[in-house]
């Protein structure tokens, strides 16, 4: 693949827009960069959330909204002075609206090396939703 050889670039950190609500934590909150892809059986979400501990990730599903929260607690080195800062450390938050075609009971999540992967299985009825033509 030619794409494999391409050089990586620093991506801009996009802040979560604050609409009506304000944050309590004194940290900025960023939108994690995400990939979404679909297979025959599943939808997949892949989110970059470096610096988050596995147990400080919250995934909630309310009605049709899937919300992912990640809280960072990266310690700053004590006794050192900051000489160069090129990126900010903050929490992560992102919401996705799901369609009715998801089997909500069987959503799976795994976190490894700063990457969160979610697999959302398609509901049975969505997989084989064929319209039968009635003959009169």
């Amino acid at each position, binding site marked *: 693949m030619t794409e*494999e050889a391409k050089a990586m670039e620093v991506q801009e950190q996009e802040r979560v827009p604050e609409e009506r609500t304000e944050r309590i934590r004194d940290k900025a909150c960023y939108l994690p960069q995400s*990939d979404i892809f679909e297979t025959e059986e599943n939808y997949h979400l892949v989110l970059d959330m470096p610096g988050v501990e596995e147990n400080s990730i919250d995934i909630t599903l309310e009605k049709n909204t899937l919300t992912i929260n990640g809280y960072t607690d990266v310690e700053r080195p004590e006794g050192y002075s900051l000489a160069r800062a090129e990126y900010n450390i903050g929490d992560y938050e992102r919401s996705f609206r799901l369609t009715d075609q998801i089997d909500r009971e069987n959503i799976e999540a795994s976190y490894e090396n700063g990457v969160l992967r979610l697999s959302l299985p398609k509901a049975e009825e969505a997989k084989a939703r064929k319209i039968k033509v009635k003959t009169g």
Partner: protein
Amino acid sequence: MFRRSSTPSIWREMERMQREMNRLFTDYTPARYRSAPSYPAMNLWADEESVIIRAELPGLKPDDLDISIDEGDLTLSGRRSPEEMPKDATYHRQERNYGSFTRSIRLPFKIEADDVEATMKNGVLTLMLPRAEEDKPKKITIKTQ
């Protein structure tokens, strides 16, 4: 004795201070405001004896990274592989990027390359770089007789 310059010394002193201040501000402005850094973005902390560097490298395993030190120069290179996905998959959104990178930075002092500690945790690389013994400032004590 003769005078080197006709400029009153107070002005020279002011100019020197101004230069000093400008240098300080450019040195300590976060790099993101000056120019886009190359990948990966780094945060750097320093004291007299060591430097700590952090970089966010989500999805990279220690084997994907190559770190080398040549006295006061650090080179970090690696590759992030594309997501492994089934053949029938179709993308709806692709924001995460992948590919290869190399970045070199000049450190404030010579490094004891054998004592560098590199750790990878939750996609964040931390490098602990101790200053070389020969490069440390020496304090000279004055003997009294």
